[in-house]
């Protein structure tokens, strides 16, 4: 399997496309900046959100029980899934109970994480994604490349071709207005004929047992209110203590995500409508384990705004698929190794540790510090290539021995040969697209000894 470096090398073969991808996402980062700078108390809001989430993590077992109790009182059925497989089975079970073969689904990164669509397809269930971006990648038989903007890697002309094939839009037409309208008309038929709708959950409130789903398109509401059965799937970290805390999170979420003051719809589902059922599936899938990792538990504070994606100079230039996991970007790189260290050992290294991700994070997750810490863990657990380990050992020895370092330096600049980014030959990755600095006639230490030392 290809790693992040290889996949992004492929992505970078088409430089104009990389420029386009980078600029499109930078535009989103700029919209976020503008929205954030319109709120003088922004940093205090982030701090408050972070503290609320700290409270949630420290009291999660109680909040989960409280949430379940309240939700049940509200007439909602609550299910618990230890892992992705159990989650998928629960959803399938609800479909079977209702004798249903078809379902509409609004965006849920959790179901991407659990590979629900693939599983249901194997069971003969027809799932229709209704978020426009998700619909596009579904028709293209691809996973989303971004958690908020699933098809941000697609050009409108390509979507025009896709929609011409699947929705019969005029050939050669790539007008976003026309394409969106075609999807609207097409998906209305699905909303009106599907008896089960699945949505994600943005926030679940322990105090009241209600949950909140945020969309701009209105697809979650269209699905849920027109179906007989609404299934809402949530990672267990989505809990917040009280309804009033939504004031903090809803101020931050859309501004961080797209620069909007709030999403068009922030729908609070508390009780099923007449003749309707609501099921909530609470999913662990590694979260309780991550909660036990003191250095990494803060990653569970994430509210999935994707601000860290949009600001990440590496994400913008490598594309979401280079992360080969459901949740890409910097946050994905600290979540994925928890699920599988071997498979995702490359991701914490797909960063320059520039720290921009931590600065935009609305709940102040120390993302770049966790990337650094994951590197240490992965090496300790034996997921570093042998050659790298050997090189590092050699470097560690020379750099702790000034005699060796200075002799090596004099003899031909030890660093030139050994610090990996400085090896000057045509096989070295540095030299492929960059020149080397010219070697000076003496090192600073040599100069100093000659000119300054008493």
């Amino acid at each position, binding site marked *: 399997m290809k790693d992040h470096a290889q996949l992004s090398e492929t992505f970078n073969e088409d430089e104009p496309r990389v420029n386009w991808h980078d600029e499109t996402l930078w535009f989103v980062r700029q919209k976020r900046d503008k929205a954030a700078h319109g709120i003088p108390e922004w940093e205090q809001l982030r701090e408050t959100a972070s503290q609320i989430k700290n409270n949630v993590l420290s009291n999660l077992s109680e909040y989960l029980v409280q949430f379940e109790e309240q939700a049940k009182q509200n007439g909602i059925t609550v299910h618990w899934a230890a892992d992705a497989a159990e989650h998928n089975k629960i959803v399938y079970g609800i479909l079977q109970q209702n004798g249903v073969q078809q379902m509409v689904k609004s965006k849920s990164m959790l179901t991407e994480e659990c590979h629900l669509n693939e599983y249901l397809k194997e069971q003969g269930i027809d799932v229709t994604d209704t978020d426009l971006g998700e619909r596009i990648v579904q028709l293209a038989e691809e996973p989303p490349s971004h958690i908020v903007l699933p098809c941000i890697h697609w050009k409108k002309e390509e979507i025009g071709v896709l929609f011409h094939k699947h929705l019969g839009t005029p050939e050669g037409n790539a007008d976003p207005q026309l394409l969106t309208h075609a999807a609207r008309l097409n998906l209305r038929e699905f909303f009106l004929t599907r008896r089960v709708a699945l949505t994600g959950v943005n926030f679940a409130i322990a105090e009241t047992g209600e949950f909140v789903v945020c969309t701009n398109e209105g697809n979650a509401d269209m699905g849920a209110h027109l179906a007989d059965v609404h299934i809402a799937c949530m990672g267990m970290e989505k809990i917040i203590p009280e309804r009033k805390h939504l004031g903090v999170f809803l101020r931050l979420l859309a501004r961080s995500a797209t620069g909007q003051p709030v999403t068009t719809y922030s729908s609070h589902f508390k009780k099923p409508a007449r003749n309707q059922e609501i099921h909530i599936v609470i999913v662990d899938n590694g979260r309780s384990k991550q909660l036990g990792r003191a250095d990494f538990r803060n990653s569970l504070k994430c509210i999935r705004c994707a601000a860290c994606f949009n600001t990440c100079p590496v994400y913008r230039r490598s594309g979401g698929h280079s992360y080969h996991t459901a949740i890409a970007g910097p946050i994905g790189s600290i979540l994925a190794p928890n699920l599988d260290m071997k498979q995702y050992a490359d991701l914490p290294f797909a960063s320059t540790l*520039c720290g*921009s991700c931590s600065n935009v994070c609305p709940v102040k997750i120390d993302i770049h510090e966790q990337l650094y810490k994951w590197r*240490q863990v992965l090496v300790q657990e034996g997921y570093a290539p042998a050659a790298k380990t050997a090189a590092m050992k050699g470097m560690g020895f020379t750099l702790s021995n000034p005699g060796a370092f200075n002799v090596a330096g004099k003899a031909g600049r030890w660093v030139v040969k050994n610090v990996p980014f400085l090896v000057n030959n045509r096989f070295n990755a540095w030299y*492929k697209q960059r020149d080397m600095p010219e*070697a000076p006639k003496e090192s*600073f230490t040599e100069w100093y000894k000659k000119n300054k030392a008493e």
Partner: protein
Amino acid sequence: MRVALFIPCYVNQFYPQVAIATLQLLEKLGVTVQYPVNQTCCGQPMANSGFEHLAQGCNTLFIKNFSGFDYIVCPSGSCTLHIKDHLHDEHQEGKAQEIRTRVYELTEFLTDVLHVTKLDAKFPYRVGMHQSCHGQRGLHLSQMTELVEKPFSKPLQLLQMVEGVELVELDRKDECCGFGGTFCVAEEAVSVKMGKDRVADHIKQGAEYITAADMSCLMHLEGILKRQKSSVQVKHIAEILNGEGV
């Protein structure tokens, strides 16, 4: 005040002029500087690669070289940050802790400790300031565009004291250049692309020189500029502040 000069390993080997400029600048400002000649490296190349445990020898050596000084000054935000965040030694944690609080990046030492208000320097060129991430986001040498906070910049504050410097305004004020230590070879494609984009921004604004408080970023950008046969050059901020014309 006892001040030690801490020079990054690659600056020592490749850019001695940056270390000389740092030393001369500090001496011009009346500081007596000592350079512990047995210094090698802060250990960051290992640590950032996940081999923090192999940096212990470097840490012990660092403590041996730099204990007992009032200030340790380094012309690199990245190496300074590494020491501040990661210098530990279970046998002499007290000394490690003392060093962590006494290590300063050059520009912050000039503005916050020496309170420099004027410099005898001239550099009549259009200059683009590259904000190195570790100095900026790690040491807070400058305000960061992500935050809703009052703007400030210690390096720019100093550059404005240099006669003739014309600072260019970048489209992306503080985007990472893509060096990232071993990232620059492990993720060569993205690293180079990031560097090319940074360089293009400076060139678009008409910069003749790109400066920074970190030579590692500049080495990466210089590598790209040279490969592109560009006339734009890089210069460490110490060289400009030291008043070396070109």
